[in-house]
């Protein structure tokens, strides 16, 4: 530890500064993008007055939040009420440390990997830290001392625990094929071309993982913890000013980090048709960073797209979906990947086997659900909608 070259120490500091600020600016850009894209999808303009194309709107919003009065209601549990937003924000910030955002740059004879820390338990670190995020929501909800907040917190904790299982199981297939927990190794193992990337080999696991990630970030269609129509604003009902903003910053940060992790695990990391190898030792690193950035941005657009096109789940639907569809699919994917990889050692066979087995499992579960659900009793009273009336019109 003592004899590290100065270049590496300096580069680490620079990397940390760049990534943290990129994350914060990314949050602002995401808020702007969300409002503009939702406007575009609903055939209206969205904020376009502050700065070019409304780009400075998040800055204006941030200033407004800072200068607003920070109200702490009398009935709250003060220490936890103050602590909760930070407990949500800090995990969201520190997860990014293990995400590799590019290949590497060679400076002054030292190879600098574009990653803050390449630890050999990378994925476990991500799972561990993201599982701490739930405390922010739960404590904020409880400390608010408000029925709606508490309901939101309870919903959120049950949801996060349920979907965490799928999140973990979805990764195991990849671990078996790469035999490494380091995110950098996983990114390198995937080749330059899209058909070598993990999302094709583990397609069901990819879908399950992505869906679980939507649930973990509390986004629509899984945002039952803050369902406006039922719970006012859920766990952050009692929050105002910058504390409220911190909840939202954490949500967007989780989305950005989640997208980056998905890109690393399933979508080939910084690889794109060999483009990442173009240029010298410095340029290829920067290009790979650019590729990673664009991939993450496209995935984030998917987040916004889903939010403004899908309706919210009902709570029992959410639990049924998580436990009866996603979990069996992820579990089968683990078993099938293991068996096929040991017996055939071919990625193609594993990919096909995964897709077929997932299809079979979903059909079986859907069939069982249809058979066990009691048929709704047909009411005789509303005779004006009976088929005879329609037939008469024709």
């Amino acid at each position, binding site marked *: 530890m003592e004899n590290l070259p100065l270049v590496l120490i300096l580069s680490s500091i620079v990397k940390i500064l760049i990534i943290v600020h990129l994350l914060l600016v990314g949050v602002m850009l995401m808020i702007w993008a969300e409002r503009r894209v939702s406007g575009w999808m609903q055939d209206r303009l969205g904020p376009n007055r502050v700065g070019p194309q409304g780009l400075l709107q998040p800055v204006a919003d941030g200033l407004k939040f800072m200068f607003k009065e920070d109200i702490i209601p009398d009935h709250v549990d003060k220490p*936890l009420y103050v602590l909760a937003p930070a407990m949500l924000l800090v995990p969201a910030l520190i997860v990014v440390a293990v995400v590799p955002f590019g290949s590497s740059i060679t400076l002054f004879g030292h190879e600098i990997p574009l990653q803050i820390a390449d630890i050999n338990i990378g994925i*476990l670190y991500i*799972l561990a830290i993201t599982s701490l995020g*739930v405390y922010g929501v739960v*404590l904020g909800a409880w400390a608010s001392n408000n029925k709606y907040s*508490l309901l939101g*917190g309870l919903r959120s904790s049950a949801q*996060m*625990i349920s979907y965490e299982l799928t999140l973990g199981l979805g990764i195991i297939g990849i671990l078996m094929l790469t035999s490494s927990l380091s995110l950098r190794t996983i990114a390198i193992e995937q080749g330059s071309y899209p058909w070598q990337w993990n999302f094709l080999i583990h397609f069901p696991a990819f879908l399950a993982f992505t869906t679980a990630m939507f649930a973990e970030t509390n986004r629509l269609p899984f945002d039952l913890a803050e369902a406006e129509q039922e719970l006012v604003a859920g766990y952050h009902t009692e929050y105002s000013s910058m504390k409220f903003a911190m909840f939202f910053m954490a949500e967007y940060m989780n989305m950005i980090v989640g997208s980056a992790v998905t890109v690393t695990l399933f979508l080939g990391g910084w690889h794109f048709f060999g483009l990442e190898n173009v240029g010298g030792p410095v340029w290829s690193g920067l290009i790979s960073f650019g590729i990673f950035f664009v991939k993450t941005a496209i995935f984030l657009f998917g987040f916004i797209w889903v939010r403004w096109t899908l309706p919210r789940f009902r709570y029992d639907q959410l639990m049924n979906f998580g436990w009866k569809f996603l979990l069996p699919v992820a579990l089968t994917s683990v078993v099938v990947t293991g068996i096929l990889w040991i017996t055939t050692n071919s990625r193609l066979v594993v990919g096909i086997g995964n897709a077929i087995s997932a299809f079979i499992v979903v059909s079986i579960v859907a069939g069982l659900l249809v058979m066990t659900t009691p048929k709704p009793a047909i009411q005789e009273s509303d005779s004006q909608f009976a088929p005879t009336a329609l037939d008469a019109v024709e």
Partner: protein
Amino acid sequence: MNAEQILFILFGAVSLIGAVSVISFRHPIYSALSLVVTFFAQAGLFVLLGAHFVAAVQVIVYAGAIMVLFLFVIMLLNLGTLSAKGPIGPKLKGFAVILGILLAIEGIYIAVNSASDTAVAAAESATGTTTTYDIGKLLFSEYLLPFEVTSLILLAALIGVIVLVKRESQEEN
């Protein structure tokens, strides 16, 4: 004092403070949170020992899952602040004192023994073999039987819980 020692003292202190707070807070939610802090500090100690995998598992299983369920139950039952008198009678107090003395003796014994050079050397030679790959290899070769037995016990517990819960809900219907 190098960085490792400073970190050890920091994590150790946080872990001790957390552990004492668990029993000294009157409110169950604060107690549960102190326990989370203790678990987290212990994960830090594991990292210092080079046992990264154990540290991650400590956070995932205890801090991330079990304690969230604890909080969930406390919130759901809406347990209030414990009264100053509490349920601890004179009998339990005597029991606690005996247990405390036993633990203290144990602690002193370990502290004296591990201060010798052989234990430190053994610990140093043991580090470096604690990567996830090695743990996996050991679990599925040398410790295969205990591993499988443990997983069977967990499975039995899981099925037991489902059976217990299921019966209750059927009686309600």
